[in-house]
């Protein structure tokens, strides 16, 4: 191979795959490479034998694994737990690129919060809200007034603002106006706006307002919860976008380490050398692992524990999938603990099995102990795989050397920050903002 491309993409994580899909559709000639032998990078879904290989010093043999957990190929275990917001940006991108043709989705059955030692369902509609034991009657009325304000708010109609200014009032001031108590604030900020800590209280209200709108609209779209999940696991998403890229001419090479990065005399990216030969392009997009020297730690570390269960989680009405949020205030922490549960109905586990991934931002030097409240909720755990990931970000914006790097996948429970990163990189690479248009469906039919 001695070939020229418009863009070289390194790493097949979801961020990189969406970008190569979008750029290919626009007619760019894309070469997409991964050093690993499978798609997905950090956002892959792997079989149990791959999981044992990644996490355990003395992995079980395939025979032992299948003896305990059924057929290996029935497992597609996510390495990073996230759900799609039904009305979120990733859903928009999937619809507008037609990648929905390749991936099927199910609703996540419910969203739950942990409060005073118990697990409660987050009400998904007014009926559930009225009957929920979670709030007293007066607090429910105040909450209703708050949500009506959100629903009626129109940017250009000052009357609907009720005297509040989203850019100047802090969220705490908004809560104060509606007279909301601390457990309701906790509920709104963590279960609806999905903030992982309380820093948002002292910041302008707008981002929180927007997050609540996203939550409410996402719940309204399909009914049970705001979340969607792809059959066969999150690893289907990067694969779907690589297919999009490929049908628009993208070239794919797995199992191909980068042996050398080539630069021009003035220090700009020029190309790479692999076992297949040389490939040149004026621009490279990559995940942080391909250019570690050009990335820095954000100072955050996330611990994730992948747990195999043979039972649904207690007090979730035997949900086949759910999110449980353990708010920081409930367990004396700064950051929330998340539990994401999926099961055999999503083709990610063998029959009768559930996968629960527990995660949080590390606060102490004994991170596994920080997850204990979540393990208690899960009950008996058949097998557990724990890992710690440092969150990296690029040091520079790429304009100097044409090397555009993505951020690590953060601790949030959904893909909104990832799609922000996609749009940001897209803008820096192309010079124009990403505009999602429904593309013409190309399908010849006789």
């Amino acid at each position: 191979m001695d070939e020229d491309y418009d863009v070289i993409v390194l790493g097949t994580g979801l961020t990189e795959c969406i970008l190569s899909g979008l750029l290919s559709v626009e007619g760019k000639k894309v070469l997409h490479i991964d050093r690993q032998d499978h798609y997905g990078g950090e956002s892959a879904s792997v079989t149990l034998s791959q999981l044992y290989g990644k996490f355990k010093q003395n992995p079980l043999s395939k025979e032992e694994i299948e003896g305990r957990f059924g057929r290996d190929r029935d497992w597609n275990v996510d390495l990073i737990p996230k759900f799609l917001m039904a009305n979120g940006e990733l859903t928009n991108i999937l619809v507008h690129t037609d990648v929905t043709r390749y991936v099927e989705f199910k609703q996540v059955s419910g969203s739950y919060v942990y409060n005073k030692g118990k697990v409660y369902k987050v009400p998904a509609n007014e009926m559930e809200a009225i009957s929920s034991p979670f709030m007293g009657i007066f607090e429910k009325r105040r909450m209703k007034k708050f949500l009506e304000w959100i629903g009626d708010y129109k940017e250009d109609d000052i009357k609907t603002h009720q005297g509040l200014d989203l850019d100047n009032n802090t969220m705490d001031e908004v809560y104060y106006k509606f007279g909301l108590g601390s457990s309701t604030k906790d509920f709104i900020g963590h279960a609806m706006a999905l903030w992982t800590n309380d820093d948002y209280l002292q910041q302008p209200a707008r981002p929180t307002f927007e997050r609540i709108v996203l939550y409410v609209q996402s719940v309204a779209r399909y009914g049970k919860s705001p979340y969607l999940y792809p059959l066969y696991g999150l690893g289907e998403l990067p694969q779907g976008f690589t297919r999009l890229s490929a049908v628009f001419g993208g070239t794919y090479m797995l199992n191909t380490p980068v042996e050398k990065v080539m630069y021009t005399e003035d220090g700009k990216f020029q190309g790479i050398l692999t076992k297949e030969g040389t490939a040149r392009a004026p621009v490279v997009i990559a995940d942080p692992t391909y250019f570690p020297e050009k990335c820095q730690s954000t100072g955050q570390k996330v611990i994730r524990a992948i747990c195999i269960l043979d039972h649904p989680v207690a007090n979730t009405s035997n949900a086949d999938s759910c999110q449980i949020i353990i708010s920081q205030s409930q367990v004396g922490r700064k950051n929330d603990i998340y539990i994401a549960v999926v099961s055999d109905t999503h083709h990610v586990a063998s029959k009768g099995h559930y996968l629960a991934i527990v995660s949080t931002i590390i606060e102490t030097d004994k991170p596994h102990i920080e997850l204990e409240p979540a393990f208690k909720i899960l009950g008996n755990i058949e097998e557990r795989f724990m890992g710690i990931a440092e969150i990296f970000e690029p040091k520079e914006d790429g304009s100097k050397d044409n090397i555009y790097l993505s951020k690590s996948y953060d601790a949030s429970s959904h893909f909104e920050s990832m799609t922000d990163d996609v749009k940001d990189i897209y803008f820096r690479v192309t010079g124009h903002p990403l505009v999602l248009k429904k593309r013409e469906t190309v399908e010849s039919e006789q």
Partner: protein
Amino acid sequence: MNSNVASIKLVLLGEAAVGKSSIVLRFVSNDFSENKEPTIGAAFLTQRVNMGNQTIKFEIWDTAGQERFASLAPMYYRNAQAALVVYDITKPQSFIKARHWVKELHEQASKSIIIALVGNKLDLLESDEERKVAREEAESLAQEEGLLFFETSAKTGDNVNEVFLGIGEKIPLKQQEVQNGNGASVNEVSRVDLNVAGSSGANSSGCNC
């Protein structure tokens, strides 16, 4: 008239340049072009075939070039009900690759998948090229592995329709097994169709046929 339309996902597998896309082009458009460039932007091609009182709509998935560096995604053959494993009868290497794909499909794809082994480029024998993969060798592989077997020429159209008709004949009987046999009793009702901009209520399974 036919009221039953069964949609069948059919995937193409085989080494680069054995004529996978050409076979499909012949089947779908009754056309052939030398040095055909890969189709840009087509998610898959479709073609309907009438079989008695049933119509089969083939959704034919091309590799889109992802086989060039052995980088096909498992998603590609997920849920495929049929596969064409294609080789070039003048290229022994492509037959070795075909054996690999048959093995891969048996390991990774749905248990009830119907696989057709297709030796392409019969027309080259007319132009003095030498056959390098014996018909008997391919037949015995097909027999061992339970495959349909055809030799075709996408260029002349020889035997191409027969491949798809052969698969079509096997389908109605197999359909039942797809539903019951692979342990994938997914609750269809809870699947959602993202393309429906519904504002409320649960959307049922989205079949866009």
